């Protein structure tokens, strides 16, 4: 047992750190540090920089464009990206459909789709949830009926993140209604510019536009866009859900969030002293930081098991639950620090309009961020569902 990095790991850390320092565009950094709503071009530009360096897909096998790093190196890489507050890797292509494609697709499909994912030239979105399905994903109703060499897709998807920017969608569709729910689902890719695809924005309560409803009205999809076998979509989806969970602890980002909270609490005044000297606020910050440390070491232990080839198992649901609780708590404390200025709704400034904010810049978006982060305990399998998973898969209940 040893907490220190090896000399090789330390060298790697230095390499990553200086690469980021030299290549992370200042204008994107400024937008992200200010907490503005991200733009598509920021994500794409940053991912292309990583792609040029060969670092955009550390989780992928080397043959498909991965880095061949050890688990520790991957961890260090994630930590450094988080600490530098770079745009998060948009998961839909690189973490979701990519792995499904290189694992289950034909050679031809791999050649067709993987390059665009790696280069970020094709933006993907995820067609899973439906208005009626919620956490009960397998109850989905969107239908794909085969007609000759095409599927005709009808139905709708919802909570489709960043669909407004997407070129392609990977979509769970029902190809057979006569069998058990899970067995009638297929995994289909199609172009969002196909006739019959409509995207309607869903504005969330913080005023942001991240998610959408997608309607499919007789969308024609060539059969060669089916991944794997018809009826096996649920298997691929489950495979993908396992992938989606890695990195969900978001330790590095939460560390940055806490560092920012400390900065704020050192500036904001309470009865003539910095808020950080208020014993209640100080205690809550300390508790949060300790929670995060515990999560960090729990993640490292998971990593250690993983590098021994055991996992990531259902234990990683802990990372989702605790990670999102901490992310939410950070935004709660930011609202508390903001005091009355939390009231001010600086939406236009947050969307990037060149407009001054009301109150201190550091807390200008505290309330919308708090509202927005409530989603984290809902999406990606709600925290209640994660507990069901642990109860069943880990505790055997």
């Amino acid at each position, binding site marked *: 047992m040893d907490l220190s990095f090896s000399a090789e790991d330390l060298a790697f850390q230095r390499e990553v750190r200086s690469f980021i320092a030299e290549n992370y565009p200042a204008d994107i950094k400024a937008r992200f540090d200010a907490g503005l709503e991200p733009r598509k071009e920021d994500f794409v530009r940053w991912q292309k920089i990583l792609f040029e360096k060969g670092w955009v897909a550390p989780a992928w096998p080397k043959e498909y464009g991965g880095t061949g790093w050890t688990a520790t190196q991957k961890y260090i890489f994630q930590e450094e990206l988080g600490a530098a507050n770079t745009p998060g890797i948009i998961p839909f292509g690189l973490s979701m459909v990519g792995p499904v494609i290189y694992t289950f697709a034909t050679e031809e499909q791999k050649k067709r789709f993987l390059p665009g994912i790696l280069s970020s030239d094709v933006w993907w979105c995820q067609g899973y949830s439906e208005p009626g399905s919620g956490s009960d994903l397998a*109850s989905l109703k969107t239908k794909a009926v085969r007609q000759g060499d095409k599927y005709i897709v009808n139905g709708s998807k919802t909570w489709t993140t960043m669909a407004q920017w997407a070129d392609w969608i990977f979509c769970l569709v029902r190809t057979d209604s006569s069998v058990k729910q899970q067995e009638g689902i297929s995994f289909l890719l199609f172009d969002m510019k196909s006739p019959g695809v409509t995207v309607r924005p*869903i504005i969330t*309560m913080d005023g942001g536009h991240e998610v959408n409803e997608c309607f499919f009205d007789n969308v024609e999809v060539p059969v060669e866009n089916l991944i794997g076998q018809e009826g096996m979509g649920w298997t691929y989806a489950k495979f993908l859900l396992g992938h989606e969970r890695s990195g969900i602890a978001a330790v590095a980002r939460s560390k940055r969030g806490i560092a920012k909270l400390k900065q704020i609490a050192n500036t904001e*005044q309470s009865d*003539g002293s910095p808020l950080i000297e208020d014993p209640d606020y100080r205690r809550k910050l300390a508790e949060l930081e300790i929670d995060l440390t515990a999560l960090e070491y729990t993640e490292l232990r998971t990593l250690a098991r993983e590098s021994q080839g055991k996992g990531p198992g259902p234990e990683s649901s802990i990372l989702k639950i605790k990670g999102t609780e901490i992310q939410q708590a950070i935004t709660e404390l930011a609202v508390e620090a903001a005091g009355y200025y939390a009231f001010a*709704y600086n939406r236009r400034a947050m969307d990037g309009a060149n407009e001054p904010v009301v*109150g201190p810049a550091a807390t200008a978006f505290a309330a919308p961020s*708090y509202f927005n982060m409530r989603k984290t305990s809902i999406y990606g399998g709600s925290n209640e569902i994660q507990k069901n998973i642990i109860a069943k898969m880990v505790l055997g209940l």
Partner: protein
Amino acid sequence: MDFNYSDEQKLLIDSVERFIQDDYDFDTRRAILKSEDGFRRDLWQKFGELGWLAVPFSEEDGGLGGTAVETMIIMECFGRGLVVEPYLSTVVLAGGLLRHGGTTGQKETVLPELMAGTLLAAVGYAEPTSRFNLADVSTTAEKAAGGYVLKGRKSVVLHGPMADKLIVSARTSGGRRDEAGITLFLVDAGAAGVSRQDYPTVDGLRASEIVLDGVSVGEGDVVGVVGEGFALLERVIDEATAAICAEAVGAMETLHKATLEYARTRVQFGQPIGRFQVIQHRLVDMYMAYEQAKSMAIMASLKLDAAPEERRRAVSAAKVQIGKSARFIGQQAVQLHGGMGMTDELNVGHYFKRLTMIETLFGNTDFHLKRYAA
């Protein structure tokens, strides 16, 4: 000891509830939020006609002589409907200051119009770095011929954009956080030297940053006693705190009912989610949080006329309970509604946002815990 409403109070409940149901549905409110003014003047007139704006004022002042219970009733119903009109600012805050501290002249000038619904008012008690300390006043009032000159800045003045009259706290003597030396002034919103930066709030209200850059006021514009404004302001803020506790109770009730209804009807894994025991117990916890909050809101309202020490403790205790209950119920209502709870188009998020701001308004849970334990 009696927890029952009088017949007159029951009529008031009916009247406000009917208004919410008939005239203030969710789409009406959405339209108000998007409008230029951020409130509906015709509805406000209606409040006047129905007598709601006259409720807390004495019959001598031309009011209805209602008690804190009537204000509680109105605010609780307003909480159910998420009413954004400036009742809190105009009637409870500004009205309260005039009621308890206004001169005959001030009352005669302001109150009739206020009660008729033709005059709106707002109160500036906070400053950029004062946080929740009402005694932390940097705005100065310097003695001048026949009156005072005000200089300073008041922040997050709720309902400031629509106010015709302002009442602001300023320092006539003493150090920055001294309770002594604070004086309240009635200021015309359009007076020379008053400038406003207006903005919407995250929970659908409007507010202003107000700069007072050499605003001249007369001696007759002092509300209450020179240098002794703190006690008056604190009393009225306590009354307003009890009022928003009641508002929060109304909002929590609606939110809990909506979530309960959703749990009964939303089917997942082949059954309504309300059949899952974890969801059931969550709803029970929300119900208990609501009941405890309701008990405390009543308690606080009934203690507003107690001795200051008892009133302070009662109000702070209530605000702590309401703050905790509001956070729990708000968060869980969103959680149990899943993705739908996150959207702007469902009412759940709007209640959640209002409850979040009430948690902060007039001092958050930490502030009131300390004030209670002081």
